[in-house]
C-alpha cells in the first residue's frame, strides 16, 4: 500500500473552538494509564512485595486465582503437539472471550507495551517529516502468523517465542533484562526510518491474531457527526490503521457510521485529534448518525 503524504495542519486551526488538553488527549491518556497499570500490576510484587499479577502477558496468575494465557501462545503450544494443563487452557479461554467481546486489537492499543514504542516512532516520523522507506504489504502479518504456527509444528518448539518482540519486551520490563532492548530499538528505527507503522500495522503476527478476533467486537469507534468533517485529514495522519476510517467517515461501501474493520485498534486517537468532534466511542449497535 502506497504511503500518501499527509500535510499536518498547523496547531492553531482557524475557527476551531479551543479544546482543553483533556479533550484533545483524553483517549491517549486513558490508554497510557491502562498500559501503565497493567505493567504496575506485574511490578508491584517484585518492587513493593504487593503481589497483584504474577508472570507476564504470555501467562499469568492474578491475585492467586485468575489464570490468563495468551491464546496465540496456546495455539503455538498445541501446534507443537503439547497439551498444557487446564490452568493454561482456562486462562486462554478467558482471554479469548474477553477480546472476542470487546475487540481483539484492544490488546494492541490498551495493553501491549510495544504500542508505546511504535506510537513514539510514528509521532517522531510525523514531526520530523520523514517520508523515506517502503512499507511491506499489510497482509504480511497474516503470513507471518501462519508461519509462526508452521514453525512451531515443524520444530516442535515455540519457535516464535525466541524472537517475539511483544513478549520479549514485556518480559524484559517485568523481569529486568537488557537484551530485548536491541529488538525494541530495532523496531523503533524500522518504524521511524523504513516503514510508517511498519511493525504494528504490517508485520506483527500477535496483532494479526488479535485482529482476527475483532470481527464481532462490541466496543467500536463511530463517526456519527461525519457531516461536520472538513477533510482536514488529522484523523488519517494519526490513525495507526488509516484504511479503517474511510468506510465510516465517507460512506464508502457502508451506510453505518461505525468503524467495523477489525484492523481498528479502538485506540480513540481519531476522537482526540478531531476538532469537529466527528468521532465517538460507542457500541456495535449504535447506528445513530446526525
Amino acid at each position, binding site marked *: 500500500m502506497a504511503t500518501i503524504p499527509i500535510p499536518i495542519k498547523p496547531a492553531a486551526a482557524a475557527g476551531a473552538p479551543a479544546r482543553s488538553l483533556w479533550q484533545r488527549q483524553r483517549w491517549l491518556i486513558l490508554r497510557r494509564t491502562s498500559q501503565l497499570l497493567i505493567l504496575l500490576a506485574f511490578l508491584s510484587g517484585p518492587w513493593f512485595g504487593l503481589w497483584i499479577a504474577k508472570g507476564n502477558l504470555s501467562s499469568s496468575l492474578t491475585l492467586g486465582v485468575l489464570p490468563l494465557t495468551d491464546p496465540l501462545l496456546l495455539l503455538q503450544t498445541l501446534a507443537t503437539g503439547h497439551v498444557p494443563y487446564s490452568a493454561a487452557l482456562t486462562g486462554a479461554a478467558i482471554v479469548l472471550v474477553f477480546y472476542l467481546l470487546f475487540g481483539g486489537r484492544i490488546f494492541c492499543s490498551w495493553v501491549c507495551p510495544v504500542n508505546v514504542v511504535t506510537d513514539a516512532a510514528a509521532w517522531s516520523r510525523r514531526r520530523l517529516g520523514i517520508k523515506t522507506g517502503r512499507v*511491506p504489504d499489510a497482509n504480511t502479518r497474516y503470513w507471518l502468523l501462519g508461519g509462526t504456527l508452521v514453525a512451531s509444528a515443524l520444530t516442535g518448539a515455540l519457535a516464535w517465542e525466541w524472537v517475539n518482540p511483544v513478549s520479549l519486551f514485556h518480559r524484559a520490563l517485568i523481569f529486568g533484562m537488557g537484551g530485548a532492548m536491541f529488538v525494541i530499538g530495532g523496531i523503533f528505527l524500522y518504524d521511524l526510518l523504513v516503514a510508517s507503522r511498519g511493525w504494528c500495522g504490517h508485520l506483527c503476527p500477535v496483532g494479526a491474531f488479535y485482529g482476527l478476533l475483532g470481527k464481532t467486537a462490541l466496543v467500536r469507534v463511530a463517526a456519527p457527526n461525519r457531516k461536520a468533517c472538513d477533510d482536514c485529514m488529522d484523523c488519517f495522519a494519526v490513525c495507526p490503521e488509516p484504511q479503517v476510517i474511510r468506510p465510516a467517515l465517507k460512506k464508502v461501501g457502508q451506510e453505518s457510521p461505525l468503524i467495523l474493520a477489525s484492523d481498528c485498534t479502538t485506540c480513540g486517537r481519531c476522537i482526540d485529534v478531531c476538532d469537529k468532534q466527528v468521532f465517538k466511542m460507542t457500541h456495535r449497535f449504535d447506528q445513530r448518525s446526525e
Partner: protein
Amino acid sequence: MDTGKKPARKVTEAVSPASAARRKFINSVAAAAGGGCLLALGAGLYSKSASALPAQALRPPGALPEPDFLAACVRCGLCVRDCPYDILKLSDLGDTVATGTPYFTARKIACEMCEDIPCVKACPTGALDRELTDINQARMGLAALVDHESCLNFLGLRCDVCYRVCPVIDKAITLETQHNPRSDRHAMLLPTVHSDHCTGCGKCEKSCVLPEAAIKVFPRALAQGALPAHYRKGWEEKARHGGSLIGEQVELPVRGFEGPTAGRSATETVLAPSAPAPAVQAPSAPAAPKTPPGVNSHWKP
C-alpha cells in the same frame, strides 16, 4: 491505489486495468507471503540452532526432557516468581539458553529442594511436570567429579565439602575409601556420585572450595552415559538366578599378575580395597610392622 491512472506498458496494449490490478495483487501477495515465511523460517532456524541447552544451565525440578520442555514452556516466569529463594532466572535474548525460559546455574546458586516444590505447582502448562511430588526424585542434572587432578580428596586431603553439603548424603554422593599410592600408608576418600540418587540440585558444585569447581552438575543428557538396552550384567544375572545362565565356564589361570591377585581365576570379581586387611591383622601378626616405611606395595588404584 493508482492502478487505473497508470496505463500498462505500451508494448502489451491488451493488458486491461483489471489484469494490472490482478498482477499488482499477486505481486503484493507474493511479497507478503515471501516476507512472512522468510521471517518465520528465520525464527524457526534460530530457535533450532539455539535449542541445545548449554552445559552449565540447569532446568527447574520436574522439567520435561529438553525438546518437550521447549514445546511446553510459555516463558511466563511463574516458576521464577514462586521460587522462595530466587534461584531461577529467565534467559535473556542473547543468552545461550532458549529466550525467556527458566534455568539456574549451580555454581552461582543451587536449588534448595523445597519439599512442596512451589515452582512445579506454579507452572500452568506442564513444562514442569506435576507428576513430581517428591523432590528427592527430581532429576535437574547430574553431578560429575570432572577434575581428578585438583579435587582435594583425590590429592589425599580430607575436604569432603561436596559430600557434606549433599542433601541426599551417603546416597547421591558417597566417600569411597581407596589406598593412597603416593604416601602408601594413607587412604583417599573419593567423592563418588551415584546417578540413581543425584537430583542435580547443584549444592556440591556451589560449595566446592576450589576457585574452579572440581565437581560440576550438568544436564543429564550431557553427564550420563547409557548401556545398550540388551546388555546384561553377568554377575547380577548370576545372583538373581542363583547360578550362571550359560553354564560353567572353563576357568583359565591369570598370567602376568604378581601380588595379591595372582592365581585368581578370571571370573572372580576382584575387590580393589583389600589393602586395609594388613592393618587389621597388624596387632596379631608381628610381621606386618616390620615392613620398612615407604616401600611400595605395587598396588595401584
